[in-house]
């Protein structure tokens, strides 16, 4: 088979295949294991019924919206209390309420955000204002 302009086209094809397979060689075949946050903070351990403000699945995909709503309610509307579906009330506060149970930022925030490829200091931008609780390592 005769070929023409072989060199340039071959280089082009190599670049193409290289770019398309970027994730394969960039990871070198190793996948980081998906994070499994441990629910072992002192506060959670003491809870009889281990229940957050919303069911676990909804918290996974919707926690950012809850946090955002809470911020708006508190900062803009001056409302501080949140009534959950089961009638329980919560103080709408990241530091005082959320972090009371999920007291470990590395465990409950960073782990998953890192896995999902989010930049910790900017997205989410919770920590541009809030100060994370001190962690004992």
């Amino acid at each position, binding site marked *: 088979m005769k070929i023409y302009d072989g060199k340039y086209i071959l280089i082009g094809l190599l670049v193409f295949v290289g770019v*398309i397979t970027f994730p394969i060689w960039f*990871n070198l075949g190793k996948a980081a294991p998906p994070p499994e946050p441990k629910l072992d903070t002192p506060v959670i351990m003491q809870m009889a019924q281990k229940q957050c403000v919303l069911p676990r699945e909804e918290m996974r995909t919707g926690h950012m*919206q809850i946090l955002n709503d809470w911020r708006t309610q508190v900062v803009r509307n001056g409302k501080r209390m949140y009534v959950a579906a089961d009638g329980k009330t919560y103080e709408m506060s990241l530091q005082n309420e959320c972090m009371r149970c999920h007291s470990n930022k590395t465990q409950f925030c960073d782990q998953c955000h890192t896995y999902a490829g989010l*930049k910790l200091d900017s997205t989410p931008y919770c920590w541009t204002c809030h100060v994370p609780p001190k962690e004992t390592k």
Partner: protein
Amino acid sequence: MGIRFSLAAVVALVLAVFLGIKAAGLTYFFGVCVPYAAILAFVGGVVYKVLKWRRSPVPFRIATTAGQQKSLPWIKQDRLENPVTKKEVVGRMLLEVFLFRSLFRNTKFQMDQGPKLYYQWEKWLWLAGLLFHYAFFIILVRHLRFFTNSLPFFVEPLERLDGFLQVGLPGVYITDALFIVAVTYLFIRRIVIPQMRYMSLPADYFPLLLLLTIGVTGIMTRYFTKVDLLKVKQLAMSLVTFNPIVPEGIGVIFFIHLFLVSILLAYFPFSKLMHAGGVFLSPTRNQPNDSRIVRHINPWNYPVKVHTYAEYEDHFREKMVEAGLPVEKELPAEATTPQAGKE
């Protein structure tokens, strides 16, 4: 007719995956088998097609010259529109590939009574085309966060730039909106402009509808029927590390998104979408206009039958001699008369 056919095809594809997941629970098939097959078809297909193009030679230098040629030293050559050196050709190709230079020339005609012709400003096609391609490209790069353990350095700045409006939660990406707007424009344009509609084939509507659906489902997984990102990433990572697992509980919208992307990939090499590769090989753009300076070689150049001067002179010798034109062979003294009789 073309629109209905393409629309039906896209609806059928969506329905197929919806039923496949919801009714038959074929998550492994749609989450692993189809994407693998699609990427194989895509890479294999593109390579095959380009190699096929490569097998045909470029026998002649047929650059479309769009500016002043290299000529006398005091005449300014238009180096990008009429390149002569390799560097100039690369410059022209960069403009073509990254800025759609040729399409930028576009105009629209209008004919009034008279008849009188006008050529109006028309950059919308260029703009929509450019926006669509760049938005699509950035969206693709952003998706790398599902496919890599540690984020490549260029993804985050791109994301931040793309989301700099900081509107909504999760933050709205500008490229998402541009993508939808541009594809919609390209689609509507095809339907509304009579000439466009007349020349369009099902193969023109289908990719646009496919892209539109991919865009919409993608946006849905992010903003509306939210999908568990960690599971999606787990699936994606398992695919690129060749250790496929489909975690439980990924929403059907995601599977629709993934399936349509797979269809797009597999469809790509066998359709007009190959213009992406073809633009690099286009002989009217990637050749220098230097065929008076350097001899271009046609690999299949073959000898042809020509009418030689000797044959020509044999035919006209008598007339030439009579007219005082120089000849190679003089007339034979005797044989003149009978030959003239034949003429």
